[in-house]
């Protein structure tokens, strides 16, 4: 289908890292059922390294593909690197997303940040609030 790149379709049809981590060190959920996208990320972190990551997503094809790609990009990475993941990097790794679907990659970035923030909080690690974007509400993620 020409709507999405081959890569998007591959990650949509065969999403990587789908599921739940029961004893996750950080969990983040962003999005809103009202606007049709919710992403939930689970992180397992050991010695500052993301050793495992899983996701659950309610959303369109590009939302599922963005979640899948985002998990692939941060798996095995140090937390500090995962913090730097941008939505642009997710979209580029997917060989692009249609303009009106870019918010799906934003959601993926925010889901990871939200899970990392949860990890910092649970472990009493000091962090700079400035590092985090305001977790999205519907108006924010869909405004494009």
């Amino acid at each position: 289908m020409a709507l999405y790149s081959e890569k998007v379709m591959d990650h949509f049809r065969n999403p990587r890292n789908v599921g739940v981590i029961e004893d996750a060190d950080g969990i983040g959920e962003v999005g809103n059922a009202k606007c049709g996208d919710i992403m939930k990320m689970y992180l397992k972190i050991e010695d500052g390294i993301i050793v495992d990551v899983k996701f659950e997503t309610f959303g369109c094809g590009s939302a599922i593909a963005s979640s899948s790609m985002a998990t692939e990009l941060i798996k095995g990475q140090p937390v500090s690197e995962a913090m730097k993941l941008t939505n642009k990097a997710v979209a580029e790794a997917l060989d692009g997303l249609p303009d009106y679907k870019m918010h799906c990659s934003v959601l993926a970035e925010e889901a990871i940040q939200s899970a990392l923030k949860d990890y910092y909080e649970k472990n009493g690690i000091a962090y700079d609030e400035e590092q985090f974007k305001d977790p999205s509400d519907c108006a924010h993620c869909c405004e494009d």
Partner: protein
Amino acid sequence: MKIYADNAATTKMSKKAIEAMLPYLEEYYGNPSSLYSIGQEAKEALEKARAIVAKTIHADPKEIYFTSGGSEADNQAIRSAAAIGKKNGKMHIISDAIEHHAVLHTLKKLEEEGFEVTYLPANENGIVRTEDVENAIREDTCLVTIMYANNEIGTIQPIEEIGRICREKKVLFHTDAVQVVGHLPIDVEAQNIDMLSASAHKFHGPKGTGFLYVKKGIRLTNLIEGGAQERGKRAGTENVAGIVAMAAALEEEAAAIPEHTKKLSALRDKLIAGLKEIPHSALNGDAEKRLPSNVNFCFEGIEGESLLLLLDDKGISASSGSACTSGSLDPSHVLLAIGRVHDVAHGSLRLSLGDDATEEEVDYMIDAVKEVVAYLRGFSPIWRDLTEGKREFIL
């Protein structure tokens, strides 16, 4: 298996329609306004097509105006009634919340131009109540425009009764019958219809062709100025081949209405029964007052676009009222109007059967939808919350 189940969006052209149009592309390509023979051949074909179209809806050929399709017909009908109203100081129009955008957006424009529009609600089954129409009619009402059957949820409106009320109150009545022409019998006289819009590609004709029925005596306003085609009401050289093909398609379809209705209603009900087995799902629209081809469901906990993509992988072409499939912020205005909240409206699926649908295809679609819905729910955080009791089921 390949199943085209989006016949409410468009249909495959019939063999008869294609065969009918070819001579007017290859041989009789003359301009119907020209006096030489290949022009006059085209003119004759045009008028023959007009007679066929008129006959299928029990109208006079002089009451049929060919257009580029349903949207143009809707625009022209509404604009014309508004112009008549304005001349008589009547600037109130009655419509409803579940109309096609060709109607709704035209009405929005008229509101900007000073008209007042009452949008009647549809009930939870998508039916507009006749009493509501009656109660909404005022001294200054110039038009009631209510669609014959809804394109998304297939609900059939009480057109004849609404028409009768409009006749009694001397208010013009227009109906967007794009989903109905060629699929259900229409008698504009018996059903008290003043104006009716239709589109050829919904009944196996070509895209870019349609017609507007306008009862004699109602003055049309031009949307397109130019030559004197269509009795001076729609300028531009006629799409002769398209119009001829439309008439051929309509003639064939109209003759098969009883047979198709019987067959498709049974398949539709089988499909509905099968999809109802999916937990936390709901049929959208009325179970009985429904187009024979239309099935529309909401499935809680999933999103429509991903459902469509996976069904496409299984060879099924379908559509959804999800926001993601429209590229807009909101899901279908029709689903919202019948009381589906955003959360479940995003998980909608429309399957619209073709005349050639089979029981085997219906079985295949039931299995495919069940499988895909279960798969998507398997990693939906909403579904997890629902099943773990953290969120309340809506359906």
